[in-house]
């Protein structure tokens, strides 16, 4: 049976509730194609819904999971893991062969069944406990049944030739199984949602809306890579703004000289090159303990920016400021985490975040005047004071200050958070706890509008 228009409308409503908005134009395009091509089967219609609606990779992934949730149909696209079947599976292990072939053809029911079994039978899980999904995943990964399942790849008489392919298949199946287990854990926790009070423990819907703190290792890897790309994009935005505003005054002599080529008529006006402005973008990131994983995302953003535009200054701080622009430029993307192994180098006195000292040092160290400052931090100052003098000098030093706070807005100005004081001088203060919020912040950042004010 084909997908009916009313079903599509209901699905569109479902998407809306999950923060995914389907533009009318895209629905029209889909319906036009469906009617003209006379798509009869539901699977075919869902497949084209997936092809024609999303306009970027992220929304493709979101729509894929929403189609699965609503229609219980898994779209089999090129990003779905495909397994290369080696002859040893055909000879030695038909059960494994069946699972892998099913996944290759888009059917993941066996993996889901397995993950349900692992959750229900193997650990006595009390999902009302306020621990993260990853805790439960790690508990399951330690069980014998979990290990036995993946041991299917090891109990084969594999030739040297197929070893690598077998290893790849094993890694991929493990990832799939882990993701499926995580899904099931979230479902279980959803059922017992009433038991949860803190809203930050609510099961996530989409990866890009997941709190950085609650991402699995694989998810984090993906998000960190995307964060690095966002850093580059932000730097490119800034670079282009600087370039645009670099046009100098009219170069009268050269304009007249050029006009001689066209018989004296002024066809091309030549401008004097303006003395190249030094870009005045400074970005600082709090890497103290309270920032937890968020500082890794912050430093990755810093890395993306300085790798694209050499003059951007990057600093990290705990209880004193340290410039890391040069360090970031000298390391590779996969070495970003090594910054945190040098934590002791960034501690100036007691290792607890001190915004007063850090910003005071920043004002002295940073030679740029009237520039832009981006701060990534939770403004938690360990009950130390932040003087009004510091706030005033910070406001004078930078033309515009943007503040990215990884804490939920409702926790700002509670306990030792000093957000209120900084908000007074910030041009924009945003809550960024997940990739979507970070992307929105960068998308909305219009240097032209902001810095020409």
């Amino acid at each position: 049976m084909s997908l009916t228009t009313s079903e599509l409308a209901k699905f569109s409503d479902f998407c809306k509730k999950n923060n995914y908005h389907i533009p009318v134009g895209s629905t029209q395009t889909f319906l036009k194609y469906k009617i003209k091509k006379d798509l009869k089967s539901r699977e075919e219609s869902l497949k084209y819904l997936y092809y024609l609606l999303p306009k970027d990779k992220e929304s493709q992934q979101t729509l894929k999971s929403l189609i699965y949730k609503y229609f219980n149909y898994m779209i089999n696209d090129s990003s779905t893991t495909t397994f290369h079947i080696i002859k040893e599976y055909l000879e030695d292990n038909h059960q494994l062969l069946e699972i892998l072939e099913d996944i290759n053809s888009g059917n993941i029911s066996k993996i889901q069944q397995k993950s349900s079994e692992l959750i229900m039978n193997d650990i006595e899980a009390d999902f009302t406990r306020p621990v993260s999904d990853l805790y439960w995943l790690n508990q399951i990964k330690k069980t014998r049944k979990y290990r036995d399942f993946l041991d299917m790849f090891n109990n084969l008489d594999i030739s040297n030739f197929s070893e690598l392919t077998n290893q790849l298949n094993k890694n991929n199946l493990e990832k799939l199984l882990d993701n499926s287990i995580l899904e099931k854990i979230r479902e279980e926790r959803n059922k017992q949602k009433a038991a949860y009070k803190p809203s930050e423990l609510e099961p996530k819907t989409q990866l890009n809306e997941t709190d950085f703190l609650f991402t699995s290792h694989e998810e984090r890897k993906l998000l960190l890579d995307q964060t690095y790309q966002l850093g580059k994009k932000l730097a490119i935005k800034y670079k282009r703004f600087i370039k645009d505003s670099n046009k100098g005054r009219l170069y009268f002599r050269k304009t007249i000289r050029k006009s001689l080529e066209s018989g004296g008529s002024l066809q091309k006006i030549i401008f004097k090159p303006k003395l190249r402005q030094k870009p005045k973008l400074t970005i600082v990131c709090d890497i103290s303990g309270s920032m937890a994983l968020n500082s890794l995302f912050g430093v990755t953003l810093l890395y993306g920016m300085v790798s694209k535009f050499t003059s951007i200054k990057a600093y990290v701080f705990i209880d004193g400021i340290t410039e890391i622009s040069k360090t970031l430029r000298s390391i590779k993307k996969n070495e970003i985490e090594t910054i945190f192994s040098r934590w002791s180098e960034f501690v100036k006195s007691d290792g607890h975040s001190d915004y007063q000292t850090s910003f005071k040092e920043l004002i002295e160290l940073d030679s740029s005047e009237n520039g832009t400052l981006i701060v990534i931090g939770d403004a938690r100052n360990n009950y130390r004071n932040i003087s009004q003098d510091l706030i005033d000098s910070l406001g004078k030093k930078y033309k515009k200050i943007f503040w990215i706070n990884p804490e939920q807005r409702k926790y700002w100005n509670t306990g030792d958070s000093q957000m209120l004081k900084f908000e007074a001088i910030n041009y924009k203060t945003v809550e960024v706890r997940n990739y979507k919020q970070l992307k929105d912040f960068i998308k909305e950042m219009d240097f032209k509008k902001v810095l020409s004010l």
Partner: protein
Amino acid sequence: MNVKDLSLYDLENNGYFADNNLLDVINAARFLNKPLLVEGPAGTGKTFLAKTLSRILNLELIRLQCHEGIDEDRAVYEWNYKKQLLSIQSKSDKSNLFSEEYLIKRPLLKSLTSQDDNLLLIDEIDRADEEFEALLLEILAENQITIPEMGTIEGKENKVIILTSNNTRELSDALRRRCIYLYLDFPTIEIEKKVLINTVEGISEDDAIKYASLISYIRNLNLNKIPSLIESVEWVKFNIFNKSKNDENLGILLKDKSDHKLYLESMENFNESNNK
């Protein structure tokens, strides 16, 4: 223009190996006569896809390579001022100074006004400035270009438009909305195997699978620069020709010293665990 659906066989015959998903999206974009926005990491064959399509569909390829600072003069049209000036000096009638005679057609206008079926490739659109995207909206949505001095020039429905992007900058929603989206990732083992068999002379099927698996394994490592399809093909070609081992001539495949180290370490660990 002929909009008969393409088959995998058509693509493979022209040296392009892909899966059914890619084919379905291309066929849908052609059927709906909508531009195709192909996004993906560098070296996955986005430009090659456009070239292959122009060859299969027998379309003239008109390419616009985008870069920072590209503007209307370089992309759409420019008035031939010198010719206009000469005309002013020599003729008494100056009424038609802004006619087609004085127009220098750049790729977008050339594709729009071409009488022949053509494929317009707007390559690396993310390198162009955001303002430039606005210039494209009219041609992408309405298939027309407005020249203030001449009016609106409407194009025929005789073209396929492909835009490619490496995603270094966020493209505007307005541009995305007008296109059909295709994400092109690195090939699967099966497709890479087919590419190797097709391009590397003297490679056996077993070797092709072995190399395809190895390359897929390498791409899954935490590398600074993931090897492109061309780099992997060249590396295999060189290794097969010289009968070299897998850890030799790594410079062809991996263009970063730390990536070499990472690969060698990972292979060492892998071999150790297998020996156990």
